[in-house]
């Protein structure tokens, strides 16, 4: 069942619906995987000197992110070989004659021994520096029509990969953690809403799983071990998130992560996932209301990207026959009720001149336990068009009201994230909910960490609870929260699940509220900068989990992982555990 849905998703990948891939990145001659190529000289996953001494004490680290520096010094062994067994740059120019990667829908694959060849040239100075290496590899090319995030010194991918998988070359532990990484297309990271990402993330997970299995086979080959005896586990870090969705594990990405986490393959170890909680606790993006309730939706002026809000209804045993309605009022206009009649419909909101100022989609989906939920997604065009002739919406306070005759129960209203990560186009503007009952800060100007108590009938619609990333609603993934060193508790921005907890496991990311950020790697060896956010916490948890699995301890589910973290927690008792930081200081 899920395989069919995946197949459909892959078809969509090849159709490239978001126009995400440059034309020359697409692979038009998809071939089956070529296992002979693995044994060819210079095309293998790892040089034997980079392989784990004992595969039973190893765990693969998988990272899916924006362009990553696979040739970084912290990913090499003392012998100068790459620990990165395979790197897939999804939007690099595809070469049909390339010896590897013909089974991938797009881009370029670099195997560890291919990276070794580049590193050797770097060492011999026929490649002058790491920048030249990435250009030679094809992952940096300023002539191509995309954002050149692979060239950014302070790239997101560089910091995440470093936190998850760095080891000093002379640190023997490094070889116990081979790396499989996928660089998502720049356009996916550029999409301020993050809604194009799931297809490419799914394909990335597929890549990591297939390559992980082949890496195990290669180690067996080289070491003369019995077939299927090497079953390394894999921890996959996905430091991406969105802020709107059903948050109940029903999306394809969530279901796939859950399914992969529970499967037992005969030729690979357990696979675990780590996702960030998200940074939107204070952003006023999430609300919960009942039928008849109304909340404001403030859309910013001069916003060149569209804005979206999703309303998800309560669970029903059967698919509702009559779709619920919302009343939407644009600034200065009367509210108008939607008129959906079936799943899969779209409706356009036009003003008196006939111009489109918003649209809405209605869906009813079957989720956990076979229960049905209805969802309406409202998308408003930019408030300043990117080009003349495109529609634009009026900025200001819109109003969303749940129809009073909608089925009773809780309605979750969440605004989709609409902001850019460092280095990308800055023309996205985050819209948010407006609620006069919501208190933004304490009277002494401190951030409010949890929703304030309120009397019945006075409860704000906008919440801090339930701000967890909408990729992280499944059952299996470990959700990473950011912790604050001074408070020994969650950072004020770190998302909360519905129950008010800041994730499953946390790591220290921010020394204090006033000084946010932890030291992270830049793209080039030696460069460092500061990075904050739960995206920086997830890879630290990935690293810890990989070390745990390498030691032979396999948490069977999320609760087991949390228990392991609890045992070493540096946080307060009874709270979400905080892992101890790895010391950066040399020990004498």
């Amino acid at each position, binding site marked *: 069942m899920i395989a069919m849905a995946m197949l459909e998703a892959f078809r969509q990948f090849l159709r490239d619906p978001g126009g995400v891939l440059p034309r020359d990145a697409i692979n038009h001659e998809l071939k089956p995987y070529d296992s002979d190529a693995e044994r060819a000289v210079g095309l293998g996953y790892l040089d034997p000197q980079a392989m784990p001494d004992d595969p039973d004490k190893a765990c693969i680290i998988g990272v899916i992110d924006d362009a990553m520096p696979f040739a970084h010094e912290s990913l090499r062994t003392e012998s100068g070989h790459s620990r990165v067994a395979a790197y897939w740059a999804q939007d690099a120019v595809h070469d049909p004659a390339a010896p590897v990667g013909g089974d991938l829908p797009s881009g370029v694959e670099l195997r560890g021994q291919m990276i070794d060849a580049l590193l050797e040239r770097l060492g011999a100075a026929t490649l002058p520096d790491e920048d030249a290496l990435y250009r030679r590899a094809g992952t940096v090319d300023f002539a191509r029509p995309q954002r050149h995030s692979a060239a950014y010194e302070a790239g997101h991918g560089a910091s995440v990969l470093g936190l998850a998988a760095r080891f000093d070359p002379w640190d023997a532990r490094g070889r116990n953690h081979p790396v499989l990484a996928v660089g998502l297309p720049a356009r996916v990271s550029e999409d301020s809403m993050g809604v194009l990402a799931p297809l490419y993330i799914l394909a990335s997970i597929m890549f990591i799983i297939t390559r992980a299995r082949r890496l195990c086979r290669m180690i067996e080959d080289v070491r003369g071990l019995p077939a299927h005896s090497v079953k390394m586990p894999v921890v996959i870090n996905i430091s991406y998130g969105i802020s709107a969705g059903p948050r109940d594990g029903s999306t394809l990405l969530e279901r796939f992560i859950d399914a992969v986490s529970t499967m037992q393959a005969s030729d690979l170890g357990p696979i675990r996932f780590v996702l960030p909680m998200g940074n939107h606790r204070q952003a006023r993006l999430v609300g919960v209301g009942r039928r008849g309730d109304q909340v404001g939706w403030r859309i*910013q*002026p001069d916003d060149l990207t569209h804005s979206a809000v999703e309303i998800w209804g309560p669970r029903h045993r059967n698919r509702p026959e009559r779709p619920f309605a919302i009343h939407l009022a644009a600034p*200065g206009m009367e509210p108008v009720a939607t008129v959906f009649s079936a799943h899969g419909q779209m409706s356009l909101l036009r003003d008196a001149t006939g111009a489109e100022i918003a649209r809405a989609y209605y869906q009813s989906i079957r989720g956990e336990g076979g229960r049905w939920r209805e969802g309406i997604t409202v998308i408003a065009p930019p408030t300043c068009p990117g080009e003349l002739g495109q529609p634009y919406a009026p900025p200001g306070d819109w109003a969303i009201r749940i129809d009073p005759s909608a089925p009773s129960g809780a309605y979750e209203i969440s605004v989709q994230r609409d902001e850019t990560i460092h280095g990308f186009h800055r023309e996205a503007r985050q819209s948010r909910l407006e609620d006069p009952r919501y208190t933004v800060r304490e009277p002494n100007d401190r951030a409010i960490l949890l929703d304030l108590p309120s009397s019945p009938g006075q409860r704000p619609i906008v919440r801090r609870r339930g701000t967890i990333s909408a990729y992280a609603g499944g059952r299996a993934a470990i959700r990473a929260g950011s912790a604050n060193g001074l408070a020994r508790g969650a950072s004020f921005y770190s998302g909360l699940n519905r129950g008010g907890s800041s994730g499953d496991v946390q790591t220290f990311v921010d020394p204090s509220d006033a000084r946010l950020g932890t030291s992270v790697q830049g793209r080039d060896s030696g460069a460092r900068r500061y990075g904050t956010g739960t995206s920086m916490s997830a890879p630290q948890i990935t690293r810890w989990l990989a070390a745990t699995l390498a030691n032979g301890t396999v948490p069977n589910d999320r609760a087991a992982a949390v228990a392991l973290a609890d045992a070493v927690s540096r946080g307060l008792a009874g709270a979400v555990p905080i892992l101890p930081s790895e010391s950066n200081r040399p020990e004498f």
Partner: protein
Amino acid sequence: MSMLNAQNAQNAQNAQNAQNAQNAQAAFGGPGSGQLSAALMRARDAIIGSAQVQGGPGSPPTLDMAARFRRLDGDHQGAVIAGELFEDLSFEATQGNPADLTATSATILHRLPNADPRKADYAPLATITRPTVDQFRAAVTLVGGYADLREDRLSEILSQTTEIIAFFAAISPVEPSRSKNIREILSVGLDIATMCVMRVKLALGCPRPTQFSDRVQPMISCPSHAAYPSGHSTQAFTLATLLTLLDDPAAGVDPESQLYRMACRIAINRTVAGVHYPADSASGAILGIQIGRYLMARALNKEVTSATFDGSAFEVPHGPRDFHFAELQAMLAGDATTSFGAAQPVRVAPLWSSIWARASEEWGNRWS
């Protein structure tokens, strides 16, 4: 060179240039160079002897007025040009109610050519009508909404308090050393725009957003003159129009072009800063475009059409109207706010024309 003081955008830059010119002069014995004067006096005493000073034969001039004009130094050239251009402009203000202390609309008039140089008839160049107090009040909410962009626009807003030519020079290559006359045109454009918009602002006397709400809290100090139209918008659109018409005198306004998008952005930045409403940007745009067109017309002896902008119609049903390049397109296409009238001739300005001709030549040589 500019004669106006340094408080307007760009005039600060010009004031700096003027100061440099003065310093150069001082090195040659201008005011403040006492030592040189003393030396000149002493040396003269020593070498002229005792005979009375007698004049030698003279010669008639060999240069016409335009050529003599071009030899003037910066400040004086600027004074002559501004005079030549401004002597053809006049103002008219209309009050809705004779008892009102502010006008409802203000018109800039331009002088028509006439065989009798002592007879002056005028035609309208631009008529700007103001919004009502209630409409301004409603627009304050938009100004508040734009405040969210302040952090993002900080460097632009601060730079643009004193310098906007640089933003256009980034688009059209007009480096000072090889575009002296183009730069002169832009500088004069700014001055004329300032003189026009200040008269209109004074006549209409419109309140600033800070007067309606103490929560606007602009991020730059709010100027003491009236709000509508926006001086920055008028200047920015004058510059965009001058550069566009220098390249092609028959060009219309393309809101999507980089020059006009930059003008829109400079205008909008003032709303972000908290000192203007979107209507100020819109009226400034029409005024600036008209000033640019008029200046080209006087250089090339072309006709210019009149334009009106009705700020009291600048709204959307039940609310204030926003301003950006798509709204500009709607205005130019002819909506309730903006209309263009019949073309009228102008009096040619010979000295200004000579500068424009040289600027055109500089522009034509930009590939060399």
